[in-house]
């Protein structure tokens, strides 16, 4: 190893981020979970292959790229074909698009990763989660966990890019990444718990004005937290 610093996003957090987002997508659309995870593996293979190809390891890179693209396409096809009805198709599409963007954001073909792409990816998956709620294809618990996993994934992606920028890929960073991810995941768990408690407090027949008041209270709380 020489002293050059590769300012690519840190591997550990990038992997956790992709795993968390795949979890989020597959929770919203349970039928497509196998396809989603296969697509993630394919995506990682393809992007790493393309990067190797670009940096000189032509044969290995080309092989990785080819296999990766095949696996990813297969996974995406599996996810889309498992969709029953238009709503699930929309969710799958948004989810897979988000996966692709996030993948390119944390495993860039060149450069130090892109916060913009990873945000776009997470926004797309968030839309998929919201769609899941609107079309009622997933139950409240699954949506809550998916949402928390999405935030964790975005956080890991951001951290992976920041660590890559500051320390580079060769530095030993996994302890820092692990600590950060652990903290966020723990809070994600707390968020899911809080969501469940809130759900149990509210009865299904809650009048709309009560919900509106709750929302106003929520706005004040968040404003208080914001400043």
């Amino acid at each position, binding site marked *: *190893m*020489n*002293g050059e*610093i590769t300012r690519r996003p840190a591997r550990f957090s990038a992997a956790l981020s992709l795993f968390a987002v795949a979890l989020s997508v597959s929770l919203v659309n349970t039928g497509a979970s196998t396809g989603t995870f296969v697509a993630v593996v394919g995506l990682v293979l393809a992007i790493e292959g393309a990067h190797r190809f670009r940096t000189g390891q032509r044969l290995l890179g080309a092989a990785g790229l080819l296999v990766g693209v095949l696996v990813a396409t297969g996974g995406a096809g599996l996810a889309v074909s498992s969709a029953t009805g238009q709503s699930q198709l929309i969710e799958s599409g948004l989810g897979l698009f988000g996966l692709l963007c996030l993948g390119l954001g944390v495993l860039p073909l060149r450069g130090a990763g892109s916060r913009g792409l990873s945000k776009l990816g997470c926004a797309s998956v*968030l839309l998929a*989660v*919201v769609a899941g*709620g*609107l079309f*009622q294809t997933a*139950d*409240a618990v699954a*949506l*809550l966990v998916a*949402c*928390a996993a999405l*935030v964790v994934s975005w*956080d890991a992606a*951001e*951290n992976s890019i*920041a*660590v890559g920028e*500051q*320390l*580079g890929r*060769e*530095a*030993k*960073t*996994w*302890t*820092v*990444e*692990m*600590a*950060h991810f652990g*903290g*966020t995941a723990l*809070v*994600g768990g*707390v*968020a*899911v718990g*809080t*969501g469940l408690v*809130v*759900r149990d407090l*509210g009865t*299904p027949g*809650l009048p*709309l004005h009560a*919900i*509106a008041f709750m*929302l106003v209270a*929520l*706005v004040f*709380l*968040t404003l208080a*937290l*914001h400043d």
Partner: protein
Amino acid sequence: MTTPQQTNRWRGVVAVALVVAAAGLLAKRQELLLLSTVGVVFAAYHRTVPMPTPNLSLDRRVDTASPASGDEVEIEVAVTNEGDETLYDCRVVDGVPPALSVTDGPARRGMVLRPGETRTFSYAVEAERGRHAFDDATAIVRDPSGDREVELDVRAADETELDCTTEITKPPRRSQTLDTVGSVAANGTGSGIEFQQTRSYRRGDPVSQIDWKRYAASGELTTVDFREEQAASILVLVDARAVAYRGPPGETHAVDAGASAATQLTTALLNGRNHVGLAALSAEDCFRAPGAGREHRLRLRKLLSRHSAFTASPTDTDDPVDEQVESYLGRLGEQTQLLFVSPLCDDAAVEVARRFDGHGHAVTVVSPDATANETPGERLAAAERRNRLRALRQVGIPVIDWSLDDPLALAIDAQRGVRT
């Protein structure tokens, strides 16, 4: 310590939560409304998690403090959390001297530090000629949520330095001297240690110089004279103008070589009990009048390793040197010699040497050879430099042509061979 900076990475999480909640309200979906709690919890997380006040200490160990040029030097850095809070996210980048390149392992590491805990990392650099001081390490400490970060410089417990210089036993010096004891053999006689002659006693000779044995034997008063040794006062002037930042790509440039030469020369001259000063021709004035003593030596060393005139990269502009030369001339004592370290990249350098010579300072030029021999342009530059060397020698200014592949001591010895 610097104040924590917001990283703004959680900005917008509340807005997104509100949008999702509004969507849920409009669509009358309780599930969506619930999702906003996730956003609120994360917003609360980054607001409430405490920012630690980092208190770090650093210990840097070098396996060989004075390596030969081209040697690989292993450096081990130990970072200790001296505070009483756990640092969950501490990223440390060591301050590798700018002229050195890291050959093995990155000089950086991320670490989780419990109170009192120490973590180490090691890397290797390739030693280059010169004396290289390590900069402070930079540590970036974030709170667990990553919302705020503090960047701080961590100074090593003891200042580390890589000394990659060859000892010069006899630095170049011309015979002009001061009335202080030093190592230049003077023609005059006096109170040195080398025997010169005996002569008959004259009134006023010091009692210690009377040859008492002879007096006891013959009753005749004689005085022993010794050869007097005197010190020279020498100013080492380094050419650090932007034009001097020349060198083959990827190798030491002439200013680095010049600073390294100045380090070696000042050390050797001070060891010979001479008065030595240091100055630089550069965008920023850098002048230290000749002096002697331990503190002076440290000051010169600090100047060479820390002053902006000797940094690894040039400043953009080159002011005309006339004014600077004028100001240095005004500050020099009458009998001060000048050791001018310059790659002689332009005629202005020759002019500077001649100006000092014209004002009665004995000038010697040490010229690190930064030219190459590949392209026609490089060959032209080399020829021009040779012409400048010749022009200087013609007016009686000795020039030491230092090829950067050899130690400076060798070049000086070769020059001495030419002169004797």
